[in-house]
């Protein structure tokens, strides 16, 4: 999957396909900070879901727990942050409008940088 680079920050994100009845979805992938200083992610937005939260799935003692991470979230220079199944992920909540089957427009808000607009593919589950 190709990376999208903007202002020294690279993104390789994808959304897992979800059923038409679902009001939530998940995005996985990577964000790489290639700048010389740390960046602070302030949030994510899309027209297709009311809100996007950064969650971490924790499995402890055979129980799954969802832990919400609070923005801003810093990524140090040279670090690649990975969103993956049963780990950190972007939880998209309260879908508005029709289900996206192919791609989704995502805006990433980063402190002191212009908003980054990327197109995120929707992949088969």
């Amino acid at each position, binding site marked *: 999957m190709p990376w999208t680079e903007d202002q020294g920050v690279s993104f390789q994100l994808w959304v897992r396909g*979800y059923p038409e009845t*679902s009001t*939530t979805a998940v995005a996985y992938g990577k964000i790489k900070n290639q700048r010389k200083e740390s960046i602070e992610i302030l949030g994510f937005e899309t027209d297709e879901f009311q809100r996007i939260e950064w969650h971490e799935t924790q499995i402890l003692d055979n*129980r799954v727990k*969802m832990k919400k991470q609070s923005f801003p979230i810093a990524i140090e220079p040279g670090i690649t942050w990975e969103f993956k199944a049963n780990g950190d992920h972007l939880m998209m909540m309260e879908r508005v409008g029709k289900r996206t089957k192919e791609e989704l427009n995502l805006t990433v808000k980063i402190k002191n940088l212009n908003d980054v607009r990327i197109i995120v593919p929707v992949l088969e*589950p």
Partner: protein
Amino acid sequence: MKFFRLLFLIVFGFQCQKNLNLLSEIPLGGDFSYPDKKGINRDLSSFPEKTVVVFFGYTQCPDFCPNILSRLKKVTSSIAVSDQPKIVFLSLDPERDSPEVADKFASFYSPNAVGYSFDKNTTEKIMKQYAVYSEKNPDGVTIDHSTYLYVLDKNRKTRALLKSTDSEAHILSVLQEMGELK
């Protein structure tokens, strides 16, 4: 706490048995028969499959629940069609999950899966039967819950508990062993 003690003993016992490669009956889970939220009776004995895998979750779970269903799809695809288990997804979220939504969710991620949603009282009865933990988070959306997969034989007796963290090779070997049970 009683549930967790019981669950611990069962899992501990199962782990001991696993080394002997035996799949003895576990006094937990098993068959049930209740009407779903639409009034359609649902049970586990009406499936023709020799093995049933029961899994609890909720449809607004975007990460863990689809991952489990997708892993089961991958694992079971390498089993002969005649020995493939039926996967039954039981909703822990009776307030938000309709039977239709639960079923579409399950079958979307795993074609050999069905999803059921019962009313609150019935859901609680089944959870008790399976010693399932579940707790809604303050965000009102996500639910913390236990992660076991319950493997039932043709008589719909529980024969194995699988952990979500078990390797696909282990899950496959248990399901293959189940397929060989008389």
